[in-house]
């Protein structure tokens, strides 16, 4: 077996003087779908930001396909919690944003829009889309560069339950069609079990990996499957953190304050 797709060994990650991540190690093999589950404030979004290269202020090592992580790695695609489509660009130009102006004309854009079920929407503006449709476009944008790894940060937390189920299937289909592995942050235990090959459970204060639940039978899966329910129960047992002391309130924004007002130094 060659080098893992993602190899992460974080010794420590701090905001101000608060330890957010403490000795977190994880690796991902090509083709895997892995979820990070944990209570808010456990540092799961921070972990994702580190892998995306948006946060470099940590102690430890992180490699993708044997290369150290950097911002805008061609191996990584990112889907944020909100769709974050640029409202002044058409849907197609948003998907092809990587290529610059007129990126929407690339044939890959049409292919991806078909993958996420929005083949006819290339010319629309984001304001014409529903929340679920916008998130489909965001998934297509994340997959545009054919990344080896697609990162998603609670991507379906803002949509209703039915839309969420449809989006989960769209994600699996589109990612496997693009041959991308998936690392997904969620706090929906059901979503984690349904989508993933492995579920990593994080505890908080500081964030540590508490355990791993394997969900090892292939897709497509039945949502009512009893094995899924058992996996969920396992995850919930790992999540149960009654022994923890009362926590200080989590930060208002899950993103670090250093980026809160990003301006350019010209």
């Amino acid at each position: 077996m060659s080098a893992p797709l993602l190899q992460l060994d974080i010794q420590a990650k701090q905001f101000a003087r608060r330890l957010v991540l403490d000795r977190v190690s994880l690796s991902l093999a090509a083709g895997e779908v892995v979820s990070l589950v944990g209570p808010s404030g456990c540092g799961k979004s921070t972990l994702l930001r580190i892998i995306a290269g948006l946060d470099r202020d940590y102690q430890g090592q992180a490699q993708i396909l044997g290369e150290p992580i950097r911002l805008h790695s061609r191996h990584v695609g990112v889907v944020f919690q909100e769709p974050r489509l640029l409202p002044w660009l058409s849907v197609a130009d948003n998907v092809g944003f990587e290529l610059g102006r007129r990126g929407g004309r690339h044939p890959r854009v049409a292919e991806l829009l078909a993958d996420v079920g929005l083949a006819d929407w290339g010319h629309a503006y984001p304001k014409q889309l529903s929340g679920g449709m916008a998130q489909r476009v965001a998934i297509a944008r994340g997959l545009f560069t054919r990344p080896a790894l697609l990162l998603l940060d609670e991507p379906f937390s803002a949509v209703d339950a039915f839309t969420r189920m449809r989006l989960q299937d769209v994600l699996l289909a589109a990612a496997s069609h693009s041959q991308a592995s998936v690392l997904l942050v969620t706090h929906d235990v059901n979503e984690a079990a349904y989508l993933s090959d492995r579920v990593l459970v994080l505890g908080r204060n500081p964030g540590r990996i508490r355990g791993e639940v394997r969900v090892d039978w292939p897709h497509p899966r039945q949502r009512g499957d009893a094995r899924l329910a058992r996996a969920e129960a396992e995850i919930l047992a790992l999540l149960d953190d009654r022994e923890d002391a009362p926590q200080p309130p989590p930060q208002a924004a899950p993103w670090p304050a250093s980026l809160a007002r990003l301006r350019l130094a010209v």
Partner: protein
Amino acid sequence: MADIDQHAARPLTAAWAKRAQGWLLPLAVLLIWETVVAQQWVSAHLLPPPSELAHTLLELTRSGALLAHIGVSVARVLAGFAIGAALAVALGAAVGLSPRVEALIDPSFQALRAIPSLAWVPLLLLWLGIDEAPKLTLIAIGAFFPVYLNLVAGIHNVDRKWVEVGRVHGLRTGALIGRVFLPAALPHVLTGLRGGLSLAWMFLVAAELMAATRGLGYLLTDGRETGRADLVLVAIGVLAVLGALSDSLLRLLETRWLAWRDVALTQEAQP
């Protein structure tokens, strides 16, 4: 059939009725105005009746004098506005994008903004004489601040989340400005341009009132000096029409360029 036609016709007639209502007041005012002067309750010398204004307008148009004045004034507004807006876009972008430039420049501009712009007039006359230069400078000063302030505010309000999207896609400073900051600030820029243009017209009048031999502001002065209120009123009317026209041109650009905006009212209510 008749029923359907009626339904289709109703909104249209309603719209016309509403539009007609808007004309009621001005028409009534014109009528009263004409009567009041005809009855000699007010001196026709001070308040020429609408019929005389129409006559003056026709005369001025026929002689070509009005068109010449309009041409001169429009050219001044366009030149002054272009200079002021271009400087404002350049400086506003630098101040908005760079905290260092902002710390260096912005306090001074905030201080300069506190000066009522007409206070510059004597100084400009002293420095630049009574040619075109002081007029264009004054108009440019008027157009500068709305554009500058709106652009800086627009850039400061750009959502950090969009900036992150740009960075995740590998945009460096230059590309980030061109592909995220400026498009995101465009609505503010257009608001600023409209404000700047209306101030440019205001300052045109100020500039032409002080020393000019041509232009609509000169027509105002000329009317006052020769005791012809009709000239003054015609000039005021023409200025109003030109101001409204140039603003609706910018508004047209706004609806063109900002079609992507998700706003509740896509069309402004017609006055």
